[in-house]
């Protein structure tokens, strides 16, 4: 029985956004990364090809974190002691891009030093995130933005409370911003409007709609991303941005990944469980529309890479 496959016809398209400047563009990156450009729902390749392979970015910190799971410490080892060696290790582990996440303890000088060290150690496209406290983010990111002028970094976290400063410095220094809102379609849209109103070209915005980990609110992130992608395909211009999610950060915050003792026996093997926590969360979010996933564990990266290859092969 010949079955007529129903195909959605959309009018909208997610904007194509590129970050990381090569020598040709005035930067020092070995490649630029392009995300977005989607004209249909994720991986519905019988309707239209998924134009760009989703990106696996790895989270590294400006200084050795003290609250990371020992499983992560085991795998990254001494590389975690300084951002340059961590960046190299992440690149060797197969990252497409790096997220240098600054901390509250950093001064602007520390932040600039860390950024430069990472830029020198690895030629991968780079995103630099502040610790997530408005004033501190402004202070650190402005310094970083100026010091890395022309590299086409992605600067985050750009929120409703601090977008002005971060957008202004991104505009002045040729960077992009990662616009974060707490799991809400309208808030995401509103922030994108505010940012574009300031004059930052729309192809220099990536949305971070926020997610929760498996067991800790993933369903909200999952549905908000589905709704944002639907809105963008239906032609809502202020939702037509590629999305990134900090899955590693969320998944490794969960008790399931973080600790191995004093937990129910039914949770099974700790390490295997922790990796599943990160990969299962990532799988669901890739399929609800994430273009960039920020991970923490090399084994998760490997598995997600294989999954992405299968999704792209269609």
């Amino acid at each position, binding site marked *: *029985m*010949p*079955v007529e*496959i*129903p195909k959605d016809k959309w009018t909208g398209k997610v904007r194509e956004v590129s970050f990381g400047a090569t020598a040709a563009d005035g930067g020092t990156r070995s490649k630029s990364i392009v995300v977005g450009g989607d004209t249909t*729902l*994720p*991986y*519905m*390749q*019988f309707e239209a090809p998924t134009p760009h392979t989703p990106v696996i970015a790895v989270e590294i910190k400006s200084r050795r974190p003290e609250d990371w799971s020992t499983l992560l410490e085991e795998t990254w080892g001494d590389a975690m002691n300084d951002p340059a060696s961590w960046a190299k290790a992440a690149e060797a582990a197969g990252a497409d891009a790096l997220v240098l996440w600054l901390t509250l303890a950093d001064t602007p000088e520390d932040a600039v030093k860390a950024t430069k060290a990472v830029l020198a150690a690895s030629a991968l496209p780079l995103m630099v995130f502040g610790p997530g406290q408005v004033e501190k983010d402004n202070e650190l990111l402005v310094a970083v933005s100026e010091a890395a002028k022309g590299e086409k970094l992605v600067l985050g976290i750009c929120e409703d409370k601090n977008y002005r400063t971060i957008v202004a410095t991104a505009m002045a220094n040729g960077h992009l911003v990662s616009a974060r809102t*707490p799991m809400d379609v309208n808030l995401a849209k509103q922030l994108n409007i505010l940012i574009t109103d300031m004059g930052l070209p729309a192809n220099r915005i990536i949305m971070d709609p926020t997610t929760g980990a*498996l*067991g*800790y*609110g*993933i*369903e909200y992130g*999952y*549905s908000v991303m*589905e*709704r944002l992608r*639907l809105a963008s395909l239906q032609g809502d211009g202020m939702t037509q941005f590629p999305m990134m999610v900090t899955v590693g950060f969320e998944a490794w915050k969960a*008790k*399931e990944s*973080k*600790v191995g003792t*004093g937990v*129910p026996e*039914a*949770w*099974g*093997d*700790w390490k*295997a*469980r922790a990796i*599943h*926590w990160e*990969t*299962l969360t990532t*799988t*669901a979010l890739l*399929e*609800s529309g994430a273009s960039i996933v920020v991970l923490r564990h090399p084994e998760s990266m490997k*598995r*997600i890479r*294989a*999954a992405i290859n*299968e*999704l*792209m*092969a*269609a």
Partner: protein
Amino acid sequence: MALTGIEIFKLLPGGQRPPHPKANCKECGIPTCMAFAMKLAAKQVELAACPYVSEESKTKLAESSAPPIRLITLKGPGSSIKAGNEVCLFRHEKTFYNKPGLFVRVKASQANIAAEVAKADAYKVNYVGMDFTVDGFAVEADTLSGTSDPTKFADAVKAVRSATKRPLILVAKDAKVLEAGAAALPGETPLLYGADSANWEAMGDLAKKLNAPLAVCADNLDTLADLTDKLKGKGLEDFVIDPSSTKLGASIAKYTQIRRLALKNFRALGFPVISFACNAADEGIAAAQAIAKYAGFVVLDKFVPELLYGLLVLRENIYTDPQKPIQVTPGIYEINNPKPESPVLITTNFSITYFAVANEVEGSGLPAWLLVCDAEGMSVLTAWAAGKFDSERIAKAIKGFNVASKVSRKRVVLPGHVAVLSGELEAELPDWEIRVGPREAVDLPGYMKTALNN
């Protein structure tokens, strides 16, 4: 999908061309056939109220009111599992209803079948107050090519059945082998897997004889639709579809196509889908995809608790009604037999929040009163940001649940994330000592042992 009022109207006396002589006769109690059609679409009246609907129209209307994805139930002697009856493509449109059954595969040639199954069968894991288990087992004949031995398969099924009372899926491509297995399950409803282009007649006859749902397998939708159509001709109605893809790209496309077609009332594919995640390169990732993207049954390779737990949680999350976050009842909860001098910990009634805190305190062995405020099922910070968890509400809960009558030392501990509330709360509760706890629940036991002990 149900017919619209206009579509229904065309099937009523007034909508026929030429109109039926009784058109708009009002005998149904409604002024016109059109108005009756509208009420029918809104399910406000019964079709039987109109005495003049043709038999043909009746069949069409009955068909259209059937759910777009047929409900399939598998039954074992101890439990049953349902799949189907879904109504939407995206969970935010309504909700997803019947959680996909998670089955563990057992190969007939495997050693120690009963012991392996017993382990998986006994598995139980708690997530925010709910106990989750596996839903059943899939027993697979040694080879799918049809050379396996019916007696051996039957023995394997018996061994599985000796160790679990959950529903089974019987997997073989030879109807004789399946029949031998099914004979070991009197009175049950297993899923028979499965019919393909080569064996469908024999499988159809067996399914008919056993009155059991039958899985149909093919790697393309044309053949799948063909198979269910031909098998319907044998009088079968209950199917499960296996689009037989092991690669993520192909499966997300096919599963989505099947769900879309089913919701458009394409009856030949209006059945739950089964995913053999066990045959994919990464079964965890394949199973996660299947859970989020429309599978009704998911078969896993082995019993691996750390994976199963993650998948069970994902399934719960995806199938949570987006309109109602999972909540616990507000009130004062006793943990580890609190005494009058034990501290009062304050939290919200979002299940995830409540259990994060309750589990930590319980695990520490330290006694405490846990006061769960009505924050409309929101987490601490969400509720705080939404104005549902403020000093006024907390004070109201303390008074409302008469906490003062239970304690000798009037001392409450706020979650660290809402330290800002402490000043206002002091004003609301002048005779109470207001303490600010750590931000994360994991640090509560340490805090209770040290900071709170002076």
